[in-house]
């Protein structure tokens, strides 16, 4: 006999959804029969606003596109402009950019740990990991003046040089975070109940993953080793030594383990960056921002954010303002078409759990 279907609105006001979005679920008993993502609650019309702003004014805007990890946005726009203009970036700035990007990745993974375990009811983990994330934010504050939004990377380099003794403080923070990893393992990754919840839930079929446009940790959780940092190395990633962790299974557990190992890799990358960072300029002269004309052209650049490939399509028509900047958020595919597919058949208890493991970030879906 067919069970009676009820409609359950998960969000927008719901503690389980990752941000301001809504998933409309058709539920039979405890099982999801049909899922429909509704977005648009965070639409601020960034792409429209950037068409009426000067190039420099776009930089404070782009970092607001993804709140948990704003730096890939700045990096992307800066790199796209550099590509269109043919502008050179000093070597030191490249290293600093990598450092900022990896610090942002770590901060974002810590926030994800909180979300992932919080959605499973483990409320101690968010308290620890989000509290520890603040140490990284402190570093950002010292470097850029902003805790969350940095507006630090711009075409031709970065906005400021590293303050004196900053490297030591970064290393100290890294040491601390590394020493916390065993605690996180005990509490979350080695917890039998967490494993029981995570294994075999939210499975992405491996043979479909590439075609469905899965990127980032969810893809690597399927055992497919693709990472923008290796496929198309940007900045100085080709000079650094790191591995791209993969995990078989395609479930929440695999994605969690991939992210956890990426955290360790980020620590090692930042250490290498600090070791190898050359002295010298940290920016090439930026033109007068009021009269900055970018020659006509177009560029698609991409960065590996913590949720996967983060792309920018930038078109310039040779005027003071961009013609079109289109953002490819990693969650754009994950949060709508992929989520709607893998939620079918899931238990309602796991909906928010799966959303967290995909890193669905609504502001980059609707921008």
């Amino acid at each position, binding site marked *: 006999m067919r069970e009676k279907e*009820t*409609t*359950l609105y998960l969000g927008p006001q*719901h*503690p*389980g959804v990752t941000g301001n979005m809504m998933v409309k679920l058709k539920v039979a008993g*405890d099982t999801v029969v049909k899922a429909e993502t509704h977005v648009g609650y965070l639409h601020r019309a960034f792409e429209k606003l950037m068409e009426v702003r000067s190039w420099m004014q776009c930089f404070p805007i782009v970092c607001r596109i993804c709140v948990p990890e704003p730096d890939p946005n700045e990096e992307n726009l800066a790199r796209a402009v550099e590509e269109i203009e043919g502008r050179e970036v000093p070597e030191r700035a490249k290293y600093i950019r990598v450092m900022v990007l990896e610090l942002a990745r770590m901060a974002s993974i810590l926030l994800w740990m909180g979300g992932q*375990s*919080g*959605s*499973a*009811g*483990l*409320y*101690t983990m968010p*308290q*620890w990991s989000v*509290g520890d994330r603040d140490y990284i934010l402190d570093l950002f504050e010292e470097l850029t003046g902003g805790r969350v939004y940095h507006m630090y990377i711009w075409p031709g380099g970065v906005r400021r040089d590293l303050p004196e003794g900053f490297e030591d403080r970064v290393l100290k923070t890294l040491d601390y975070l590394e020493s916390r990893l065993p605690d996180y393992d005990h*509490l979350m990754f080695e*917890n039998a*109940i*967490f494993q*029981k*919840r995570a294994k075999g839930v939210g499975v992405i079929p491996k043979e479909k993953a590439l075609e469905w446009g899965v990127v980032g940790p969810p893809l690597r959780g399927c055992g497919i080793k693709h990472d923008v940092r290796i496929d198309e190395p940007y900045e100085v990633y080709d000079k650094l030594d790191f591995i791209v962790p993969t995990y078989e299974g395609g479930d929440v557990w695999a994605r969690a383990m991939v992210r956890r190992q990426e955290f360790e890799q980020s620590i090692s990358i930042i250490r290498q960056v600090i070791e190898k960072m050359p002295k010298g300029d940290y920016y090439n002269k930026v033109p007068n921002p009021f009269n900055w004309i970018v020659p006509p052209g177009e560029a698609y650049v991409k960065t590996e954010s913590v949720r996967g490939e983060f792309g920018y399509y930038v078109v310039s028509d040779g005027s003071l303002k961009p013609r079109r900047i289109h953002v490819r958020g990693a969650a754009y595919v994950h949060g709508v078409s992929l989520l709607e597919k893998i939620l079918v058949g899931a*238990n*309602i*208890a*796991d*909906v*928010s*759990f799966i959303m967290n493991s995909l890193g669905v970030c609504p502001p980059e879906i609707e921008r």
Partner: protein
Amino acid sequence: MEINWLKVLGILITPVIAFIVGVTYGGLTRIITARIQNRFGPPVTQNFWDIVKLYSKKTNIQHGVMQHLAPVFAITASITTLYFVPVIRESTVFTNLSFQGDLIFLLYIMVFGSLGMALGVGQSGNPNGAIGVSRGLSQMVGYEIPFVLAIVAIMIQFKTTNLNDLIAMQNNFNHWIIFQSPFAFLAAILAFLGMMGYAPFDVVVAPAEIASGPPSEFGGKYLGLMMTSRSIFTFAKLTLFTDIFLGGAGDFVTLVIKTFALYMIPVLTGIVNPRFRTEQSIRFFWAWPTVFGILAVLIVVW
């Protein structure tokens, strides 16, 4: 009929004491949780002010008579449970209404509140609440089995269904039932984890899944009443377990020590564990706790 005025006094002040102790335990729990989570946490009186605030809400939305009655059911069930649990051993004031067969009565009355809630939530029309109730009832089926097995084992072993008799039997440290019937204790304490509703068995209120489950449509005074009822019920359950397994308490200091120690078991488990899914939770209760319960019964019968 002669009225025992001391007993009347006890009946009047027991809920008040239970409320105060329950609320304080709640506040202490929040502090202990906070300390484990690397922070200071709220003052001890926090839960008390929460409840007072809820009572001083100016508006209260309700969707019908049953929803109105649901918190009343809950608080009735907790106070009734409390009345049949002797708080202090051999005390005229605090023995309450304990009678022959009260153990069996308690088994029934303890689920009364949940059933009342289920009726009330049904009327509120909130799907989250309805799912929460169905989860709660399924989980109750899970933990009631080991709990009943443990109680049955004890009733057979000591040939009594009276709590006062049980307490009187455990007059010495080595006569405590926790030592005399360890399997019954194991089964009961695991069931107790489920009863208290802390993680990993907090499937009923799971915020990230179903908002806050059954209470999601209840605000203001209704929620205040439910929190009051929970405080009293917590105390009642703790006292019941102390009476059955830890030999009861001769005075308030012993009572507080024993109940608090017992209370920390679910609390500390809850802090470091995520929650089960409903079917995992039921499967958990039907595995080891039930085995322990059956073992306890078998040992007694042989």
